[in-house]
Structure formats: C-alpha cells, structure tokens
C-alpha cells in the first residue's frame, strides 16, 4: 500500500545534521555514493563520468550558502555548509502519490524506501518531494533515494560501532548523528532539544524526521576592548596616554 502507516511507527529513525560544525568537505556525500552504489539501491549510475557532461545519481548533496549577519538575533554573518538528503518525513507526499506502491514508509522505523522491482519510473514522487531528495536513475528506469543505510544500521556482519549510516561514520567534523527520535534519551533527541533543531520547510507540514542544528551565534568576534581613552586608567597605560595626548 502506498498509504502511510496507519499507526505511528514504533521507532522514528533519522539524522541530526549540525550546520555549526559541518565544514563542507563532501565526505558524507562521497561515502554515501560509495556505500550505496554497492548496497540496497545499487547501482547509483553515472553518465559520461569523465566527459564534459558529467551526471549521476547521488543520495546526498552538499550545498554552500552565505548567510548575512542579523543584528536583531545577534548573529554574525558566515558561510554555512548544508548537506541535503531525504528527511524521512512523517507525512511523506512522495509515498501517497506513488501509483504502484513502490514508494513506501516502513511501519517499524519510519524509513521511506523505494521497492525497485515495483517502480515504473513515473517520477511523480520526485515531483512531490519539496526537498529534492529523490534522483532518477535513467539507466535502470527507477527512482533512487536515501535508504538511511538500512543495510548498515541493521547489519549484524558489521561491528556494532559500524552500524551507522555511511555518511555519519564518514563525517570528520562529527556533524552528523543517527538515532531514534522517539527515544527521548537518544543523541538525536538530546541534541535537537539542546540546540533547537529545526524542521526544514516547516510551513509545508510534512513533519520531516531529520533535524538541522542551526549555527551557533558567533557575534562575539571583534567585540574585544578597544584602546581609545585610557587617561583615567592610571598606571603605565594612563601615563602613556597622557604623554601622547599632550
């Protein structure tokens, strides 16, 4: 059925992405591509990979934005790197539009997946997703998307510490965290609560599972004391100031 699960999933697995610490190195995107081109949704084909018209399927893309300072919120301007992948929405429109049942949301953990044996490649789900989380594979004629690395997180052949999405493991800045949002003690729940994790495009009401931690305020840079008038300060500094001001 491409209806959404009728009862809320027991677990709500997803990612927290820290926009404060992400350095824009693309390690998550590259490791995602590497793992998944041999994983559950393999392959992730490239067309003309070494030619002039490089194109290919990626499940994770890293954008760079320039955010201006804002005095009312006391935020200094800065560069923000922004990884974008499926947010495993609770009200996923990509699931309900699918005519074949290929696009579905799992009842047990809320992960949104594509069953490639059923997909007819109508692309409607990619039109329905406002986050651009789905990319069409022209070679296989089917839709691809982030699987939350289901073939890692439940993989008993991996060491327990390795049972994390490839992108989370790869991040050198520890900007990505994986866990269950239904568990108030999980890392992801705690980080979201502490740092005010935000829902992207909240106005659309799709209730994305993944949360983004906004950059911390760094408005203290350049706020150091200035040396202007030290005549009243006394001591050596006061003496220098008095001498130089004569």
């Amino acid at each position: 059925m491409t209806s959404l699960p009728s009862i809320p999933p027991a677990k709500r697995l997803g990612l927290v992405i820290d926009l404060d610490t992400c350095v824009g190195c693309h390690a998550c995107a590259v490791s995602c591509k590497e793992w998944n081109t041999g994983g559950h949704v393999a392959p992730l084909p490239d067309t003309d990979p070494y030619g002039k018209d490089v194109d290919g399927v990626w499940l994770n893309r890293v954008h760079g934005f320039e955010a201006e300072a804002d005095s009312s919120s006391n935020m200094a301007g800065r560069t923000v790197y922004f990884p974008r992948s499926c947010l495993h929405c609770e009200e996923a429109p990509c699931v309900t539009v699918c005519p074949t049942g290929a696009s579905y949301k799992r009842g047990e953990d809320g992960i949104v997946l594509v069953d490639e044996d059923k997909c007819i490649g109508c692309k409607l789900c990619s039109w329905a997703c406002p986050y651009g989380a789905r990319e069409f594979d022209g070679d296989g004629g089917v839709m691809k998307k982030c699987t939350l690395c289901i073939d890692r997180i439940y993989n008993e052949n991996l060491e327990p510490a390795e049972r994390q999405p490839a992108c989370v493991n790869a991040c050198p800045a520890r900007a990505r965290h994986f866990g269950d949002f239904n568990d108030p003690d999980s890392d992801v729940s705690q980080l979201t609560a502490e740092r005010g994790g935000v829902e992207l495009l909240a106005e659309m009401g799709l209730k994305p599972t993944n949360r983004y931690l906004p950059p911390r305020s760094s408005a203290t840079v350049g706020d150091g004391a200035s040396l202007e008038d030290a005549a009243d300060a006394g001591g050596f500094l006061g003496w220098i100031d008095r001498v130089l001001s004569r």
Partner: protein
Amino acid sequence: MQPAYSVIFLTTATGTGYGLLALLGILRATGDLPDDRAFGVFALGLALALISAGLLASTAHLGRPERAWRALSQWRSSWLSREGVLAIIGYGPAALFAYGWLLLQQNDGIWAMAGWGAALLSVATVYSTSMIYRSLAAIPRWHHPLVPWNYLILALATGALWLNAVLAPFVSGHALLQAICFAALAAAWLLKIAYWRAIDSAVGDSTIASATGLESFGAVRPLDPPHVQDNYLLKEMGFAVARKHAEKLRRLTHLLAFLAPLVLIVLQAATSGQVSLMVAALAAVSVSIGVVLERWLFFAEAQHKVMLYYGADRI
C-alpha cells in the same frame, strides 16, 4: 518544470477525447445527435483514438513501461493510479454506447445509460488527471484550486469544437452545439485569465531561509554549488521560461485557444455550405494548437520548491 512532450500530448489529447466522448454520450442520450452511422464512426473513432493515443503516450515517459500495469494498484491513495483505473473502466460504457449507436441505432434505455456512463467516467478521468497536479504542494502553481476547473472546462471546450467540426458535414447549423462551444470557450478563457492573475500575484510561503533552517540570519544566498553540472533535479525541476517568452506565449494562447475559435464559431453560425465546414474545422485546429501552448506554459511556468536550494529566493 520541464515540459515533457509526452505529458503535454497525453493531457491535451485525452482531454479532447474525453470531452468529445462525454458530449457524444450526453447529446445522443438527449436525442440531439443524428443516428447517422458514418458520423458515429468518425466522431466516436476520433474520441477513442485521441484517448488511446494519449494513454499510450503516457507510458512512453515511464522508466519501465513494461510494468505500467502496476500503476493500477494504488487507487486508494494515488491520483495517478485513479486516472489509470478510471481510464480503463471507461472503455466499458464507451464500448456499449458505440455498440448501441453503430450497430443497433439505439439511443434510449440502456443505450442512453451507457452514454451517460461514458460521460460520467470521462469527467472523472479528466478530474483525476488534473488532481495529479493539484495535489503537489511542492509546486504551488499547480497546487491551486483553479487547476481542476481549468482542465475540465478546457477538455469540454476542445471536445465540443472537435465535435462541431466532425458534425458540420452531417448536420448544418447545430445551434445547441454551437452554443455549448461558445459558452465553454468563454468560461475556459475567463478561468485561464483568473488563474494567470492568481499565480502572477501569489507570494510563495517558502524561502531560502525556511528551506535551510537559517531563519535567524539576514539574507541567505547560495555560495558553493553542490555539483558543477546540471543533475536530474535541475534538468527536471529547474526548467524556467524567460518572462518575455512566457508573455509572448500567453498572448498567442489568448489568440489561438480562445479569441480565434470564439470568432470562428460565430462566423460558422453566420455562414453555410463549404465555408461553414472550413470555418468549423479551422476553429478546432486553432483551439488544439492553443491548448498545446497553454499546457506547455502550465509546465514551463511552474516552479518547484527544490529550486530554493539552487538560488530561488521565495517560492
């Protein structure tokens, strides 16, 4: 959005075919169309050919056309699935209606019901097609209450004009049909004007800041792109038509889809014989070219919210 020719053809051809079939079904049942077999073969043949060609074209843009049958399974949740199911069910009453008309020359009782049934399913199928677009909140210009009306009335108008063209050699001066053509064209024109006004003045509720969670900053601008060449998203959703081209195409649509056919329908009523036939045919050709332009613009002018990540400020 990228205007895919198969989808433009699908929606305009099936729209015209279903409009034509619905009018045939109703006007036969009410006794307003002749028994004439030759006319029946032409008119019904045209309707079913347009519908079938459109449906076949729709499978052409699939990645895996051989699995198209799977699209019939999710009618409980998906408008695309509903469209497919209704299209197939629709062949039932249409075949019965054709049998009653072409072989038995009947238009009452069960044959009239078959006509009404074919009409009802035609309307339901066009409505489902329109709801595929209407239901996509990620594309605000499609997620608009006028969209289904737009599709339905244009299907009626194009179907009526083609019926008028096919009927002209058999019945000269069918006043009721000409009135339907005129009213449908006028209504479709007003709706289109209202729709264009609405989307031109609409202010999107999503911004680059709400898309990135950077609302506590001042202006947010894209800096480093995630990739250096267009990917699937940019090819499919990034298509944008320059404003001056869109304006030119809108003017052409006003002319070919609405103004010219309206004038020609009036002219047809005022003329007779060969001239009248030619004018009726010209009106049908004009409205069809106009509706293809209209549908091209419907795609080309639609903005997808994913473009917020690729440089759009507000959608």
